[in-house]
C-alpha cells in the first residue's frame, strides 16, 4: 500500500491524542476516587448509585428519628417510674391506715403527706417535654394541663378527654399518639386512626390510657367515690377512675379521720400494675428502636460495599493502567521524532 507523508504525521498525532485522553480519564478517576464522575461514565451504574444513596439516606433519617423517639420515651419512662414510686408510697400508707392501731389524728397527719403525693403526681401528669408539649395529653400538647379540675365534682380531677373536664371534653385527647418512622413502610401511609403501623414507633401515650384505673374483675373491689363517705354522687357524672381521684378519695377518708376502705389499696395495686405494664411496653419500644437501628447499620454496611464496587475507583487497576498509558504516550512521542528524521531528500546532495 502506498503511504503519503502526511499519514505519518496524522498517525502520530492521533496516537498521541488518544493516549493523552486515556491519561486524562484515568487521572480524573484517580484524583476523585470515583469511577462515575458524570452520568455518561456509567448510566446504569449511576441509577444504582442513586437508589443506594436514597436508601442509605433514608436509613440515616430513620436512625435520627429513632434517636429522637428514644429521648422522648426515656422522658416518659422516667416520669412513669416516679409515678409508680408515688403510688407505692400511697399504697403502703393506705394499708397502714386501714390498720386499727392508727387513731384519727394519725390519719389526719397522714392526710398531709397524701396531699403532697397528690401535688407530686399532678405535676408529673401535667409535665411537658423540652418543646413545652404536654407529655400525657395525647396530641393536645398545647393545653394548659392534661389533668384539670373536675367540673361536676369540685375537688376531684378529670383528664381533658373526659366529660367531667372543666372547659368541656376534648375527645381527641383520648386518642392522639405520635408515631415516628423508624423503618421502611410498605404502604408509605400513616392512617389517622391512631393505630400506627409496623414501620413506626409510638412516642407518646395519653393520660387516659396510663392513669385511668382499669376496672377490677370483682366490681366490689372498685372504689366508689364518696368524698370520704360524705357525699353520694349521682351516677353518670361521678368522678373518673383515675389515680389522682383515687388519692383525693383516700385523702378525704383520712381528712375525715376514717380508715380508708380496702378497695383503695386494691385499686392502687391495679393502677401500679397498669402503669408497669405500660412501662414494660415502652421498654419494648425502645428495644425495637435499637434493634431497628442495629439492623439499619448492618444493612447500610452492605449497601456501602455495593456502592463502592459500583462507584469507587479500583486504585491499583487505575494506576497500572495509568502507567501503561504513560509508557505508550512516551513511545508515541519518540516515534514521532524518529519518523520526522526519515526523508530521502536528506540523501540527495
Amino acid at each position: 500500500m502506498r503511504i503519503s507523508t502526511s499519514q505519518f504525521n496524522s498517525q502520530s498525532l492521533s496516537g498521541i491524542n488518544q493516549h493523552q485522553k486515556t491519561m486524562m480519564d484515568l487521572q480524573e478517576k484517580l484524583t476523585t476516587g470515583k469511577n462515575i464522575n458524570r452520568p455518561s461514565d456509567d448510566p446504569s451504574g449511576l441509577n444504582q448509585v442513586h437508589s443506594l444513596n436514597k436508601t442509605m439516606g433514608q436509613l440515616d433519617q430513620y436512625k435520627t428519628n429513632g434517636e429522637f423517639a428514644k429521648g422522648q420515651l426515656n422522658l416518659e419512662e422516667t416520669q412513669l417510674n416516679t409515678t409508680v414510686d408515688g403510688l407505692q408510697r400511697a399504697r403502703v400508707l393506705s394499708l397502714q391506715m386501714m390498720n386499727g392501731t392508727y387513731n384519727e389524728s394519725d390519719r389526719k397527719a397522714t392526710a398531709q403527706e397524701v396531699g403532697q403525693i397528690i401535688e407530686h403526681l399532678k405535676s408529673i401528669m401535667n409535665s411537658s417535654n423540652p418543646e413545652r408539649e404536654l407529655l400525657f395529653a395525647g396530641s393536645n400538647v398545647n393545653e394548659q394541663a392534661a389533668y384539670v379540675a373536675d367540673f361536676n365534682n369540685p375537688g376531684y380531677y378529670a383528664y381533658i378527654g373526659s366529660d367531667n373536664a372543666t372547659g368541656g371534653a376534648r375527645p381527641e385527647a383520648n386518642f392522639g399518639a405520635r408515631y415516628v418512622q423508624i423503618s421502611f413502610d410498605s404502604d408509605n401511609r400513616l392512617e389517622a386512626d391512631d393505630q400506627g403501623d409496623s414501620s413506626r414507633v409510638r412516642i407518646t401515650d395519653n393520660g387516659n390510657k396510663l392513669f385511668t384505673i382499669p376496672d377490677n374483675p370483682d366490681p366490689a373491689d372498685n372504689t366508689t367515690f364518696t368524698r370520704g363517705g360524705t357525699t353520694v354522687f349521682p351516677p353518670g357524672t361521678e368522678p373518673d377512675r383515675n389515680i389522682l381521684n383515687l388519692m383525693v378519695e383516700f385523702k378525704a377518708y383520712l381528712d375525715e379521720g376514717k380508715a380508708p376502705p380496702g378497695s383503695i389499696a386494691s385499686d392502687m395495686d391495679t393502677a401500679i400494675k397498669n402503669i408497669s405494664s405500660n412501662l414494660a411496653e415502652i421498654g419494648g419500644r425502645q428495644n425495637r428502636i435499637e434493634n431497628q437501628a442495629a439492623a439499619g447499620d448492618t444493612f447500610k454496611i452492605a449497601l456501602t460495599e455495593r456502592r463502592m464496587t459500583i462507584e469507587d475507583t479500583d486504585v491499583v487497576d487505575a494506576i497500572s493502567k495509568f502507567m501503561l498509558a504513560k509508557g505508550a504516550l512516551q513511545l508515541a512521542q519518540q516515534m514521532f521524532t524518529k519518523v520526522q528524521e526519515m526523508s530521502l531528500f536528506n540523501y540527495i546532495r
Partner: protein
Amino acid sequence: MADMLTIGSQAVNTFKKGLEVTSHNVANIETEGYHRQRAEISSNGQTIGTQFNGAGSQVDSVERIYSQYIQNQLVSANSGMNRYDQQLKLGKQLEGVVAANDGGVQEFIQRFFDSIQNLASNPTSSTTGRVVLDEAQNLESHMGNISTVLKETNGQVNNQIKDVAKEINTRLESLKNINTQVVSAVNLGTQAPLDLMDKREQIVFELSEYMDVKAYYQDNGRVDIYTGDGRLPLLGDNTLTQLKVKHSEFTDDNRMEVYMSISGEDRVISNQITGGELGGILDFRKNMLDTSMNELGVTINAMVASTNWQHYQGWDLNGNAGQDFFEPMSTAAIASSKNQGPEDGKNIFVTFNPNSGVSEPPYTNAVGVALNDQPANYGDKKTYLDNALSSLGDFKARDYLIQSDGAGGFKFFDNSTKQDITADAVEVLPAGSLKYQLDGLEFDFSSADVANMQNRDSFLVKPHQAILNNFHKDITDTNALATRGQSPVDSNNDGSLDDEVPGPAAYGDNVNMANMANLASMKLLYADNNGQSSETLLGGYSRMATSVGMYVRGTEIQLSSQTSVFDQMKSRMESESGVNLDEEAINLMKFQQAYQASAQIISTAQSIFQTLIGVMGR
C-alpha cells in the same frame, strides 16, 4: 518524421513538465484537499508500415489522482463525525448541569424530605418547621439556577444554529463562484482546472463539517449540492438557495429553526438535517435538551403536586386547612403565527386538577358545596387524594401540540413525535366543559375564544418545562405548615373514620407531616399499563440522569466509530492521492536524469550536425 533535434527538444519540454509537476506536488504537501498530480506522458507519432516514425514524447495532460467514490465517502463520514462531536460537546456541558453527581437536585429533594421527617417527629416546633421552609427555599434556588442555565443553553443553541447557517451560506456562495470558473475552464480547453477542482472539493468537504450534503458532479464540470437526504437542492443548476434561520411558527417559544425557500414558501427543514455540526445541534436540542428538561419537569411537577395535595389533606397549627405548599403548576399555551383565529393562547391553561369539577383544593375550613370546600366526609377526601397521586403516574415527559378543528373540538399531538394522542384526552363532565384530562393534566379551553378558532389553528404547551421556570415555594409561615391530620375521633363508633366530617386532629398530631415525608418513598411516577406507578420522585430524577448519561455515552460511542470510519476513509484517500516526499524525491531524480539525457540528445544532434558541416566545409 521528426529529427533528433525535435525529439530532443520535445523530450526536454516533457521532462521539464514532469519536474514542474513534481515540484508542484512537493510544494502542496501541506495544502488541505490537495490531490497529487501526475504528468501523463505519451509517445509522439506512430509506426506506419516498416518505416520508423518515432517522434519523441509529449505531455498529454496533467491528471490528478482522485477517486470520486472515496471523496464522497469521506464527505459523508466527515458529516457524521462532526455531528457526534458537536453533540458530545453540548451533551457534556448539559450533563454537568442537570445531572451532576454531587450536590444536584436529588440531594436537595432528599434534604427537603428529611427535614419533613424531622418535622413529623416534632410537629409543633417552629424551629423544625423553619428548617423545612429553608430546605424548600434551597431547592427553589437550585431549581432557579438550573432553569437559568437551561435557558442559556437554549439561547446558545439558537445562536449556534444561526452561526452555522451563516458558515454554510458563505461556503455555498464560494461554491457557486468556483462552479462558474470550472465550467468556463472546462469549456475552454482540454486541461482540467485541477487545483480549482481540489479547492471546490475542499469546500464541499468543509460544508460537510457543518451539515450533511450530497454533491452531484455534472459532466459539464458543475457540481450540484443537495441536502443529505438528496431531496432539497441547495445549489442546483448553479442556483443558490440559502438557508434561513428564523423562529419556529410558535414565535414566543424562542426556538430557532432552519428554513429553506421552496417554490416561494419558507419551509422548516430542521428535521431533514441529520449530519454535521448543525445536525448535532438539532439532535442535541431534540433528544437531550428537550427530553431532559421534560423528564426533570415531570419529577418536579409530581413533587409539587404530591406535596400540595398531601398538604391540602392536613390542618395547620392554627387549625386551618392546608394551603398550597408550592405554587401549583399553571401554564398558558403559545399560539402559532400561522393561526387565523384571534386566540393568542394566553387563555388556554394547563394545570394539575385531577378531580376537576368535583373537588378542587386548596380547601376552605368547612364542609360545603363549593368546589374548594372540604369534601362531605374524610373518606371522600382520601379518595380525591388517591386519585391525585395516581394521576401523577400518567405524567409523560413531552410537549403538547393542540390543533383546533374549527368547530369547538381539539386534536392533541405529542409535539416531538407528532403522534396523535387525541384518543387519550378525556373531556371533563359535564359535556361541553371545554376541559380535557390528558396525561394527568387538565387542558382548559373554557376561557379561550374557541368560537372564533379556525380549522388547524395550532397551540403549543410545555407544562413540564414551565414548572422548571416557575418552581416556587408559597408557604412562608411555619404555623401554616399542615402537620395535623384528620381527627382520630370516631364519633359514631363504627370503627371507621371514612364517614367522619373532615376536621383537624389535636395540635400536636403529626399524621399529615408523616404522610408528606412518605411521599419520598412512594412510587408516584411513570405508571405501567396496569396504572401502577413505577418510580419514586428521586427515581424519576434518576431516570432523567440516566437518560442524559445514556445519550452522552451513546454519542461517545457513535463518535468513536464515526471517527474511525473517517480515519479509514482519510487514510484510503491519503494512500491514493496524498503526496509522498520520498516518491517525489525519486521522481525528481528520475525526471532530472531524463531531462539531462534529453539535453544530451540535443547536444548529440548538434555535434552530428557539426560533424556534417565539418565534412562539407573541408
